[in-house]
């Protein structure tokens, strides 16, 4: 500590420890806001069509319209950078494979296509939609939750275009 350089070294050294401590405290406060917002998700329409999209082989495609009513404000606190809200369709395919397909999300606003590995939705179980979220913090761990889910709905019979 006798020279200016050594005093600066001591100051910045302790500062880095203090910063790590502050960041750790901030990360821990995320657990002080245990919000689990709920909402209503309902399937408006569920359609199945046959066709070819892009380079995928000809197969059945499902189309979903849904209603979502929820208030996610309780998830926002000082350590919330952004939310990733997404809609998941859950059903069991005709070969007994449980599927979870992401259909929609909030930030990227990407619409994913809804199709099955077997190229058909025949003999698949009823489908259930759930809206889930990831809380992305500035510091700390990613937390997630589910806003709500629809009642189960059977895939309808394949429709012709129109």
């Amino acid at each position, binding site marked *: *500590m*006798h*020279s*200016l*350089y050594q*005093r*600066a070294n*001591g*100051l910045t050294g*302790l*500062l880095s420890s*203090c*910063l790590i*401590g*502050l960041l750790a*405290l*901030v990360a821990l*406060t995320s657990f002080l806001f245990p919000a689990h917002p709920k909402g209503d998700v309902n399937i408006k329409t569920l359609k199945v069509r046959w066709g070819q999209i892009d380079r995928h082989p000809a197969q059945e495609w499902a189309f979903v319209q849904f209603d979502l009513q929820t208030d996610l404000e309780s998830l926002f*606190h*000082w*350590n919330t950078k952004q939310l990733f809200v997404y809609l998941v369709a859950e059903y069991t395919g005709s070969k007994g494979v449980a599927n979870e397909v992401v259909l929609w999300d909030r930030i990227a606003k990407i619409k994913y296509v809804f199709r099955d590995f077997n190229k058909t939705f025949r003999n698949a179980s009823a489908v259930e939609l759930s809206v889930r979220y990831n809380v992305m913090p*500035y510091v700390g761990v990613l937390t997630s939750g589910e806003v709500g889910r629809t009642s189960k709905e059977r895939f309808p019979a394949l429709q012709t275009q129109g």
Partner: protein
Amino acid sequence: MSSQIRSLLEGKIDFEGQKLAEKIVQIGLISSTIVSFIVGFVVQDLKVAFAILSVATIFIALITLPPWPVYNKHPLPWLKSQNSKKEQ
């Protein structure tokens, strides 16, 4: 000229001054970290927390880094140099 700049940059302080400066740095930084966390949490703003810590750090640097006269109040009395051939 260069030795003047060097001594200015070196900023020597005495032993008591070093003890005092170190104590100010430690108490100042740790308490301002705690204060910045509490205030930031209360106003729910990370920017406020880091602004308080930054301003406090700059302030602490200003009062502890330069060789202020407070840190040179206890100069060590050195023995006068003797022209002894043994030490050479």
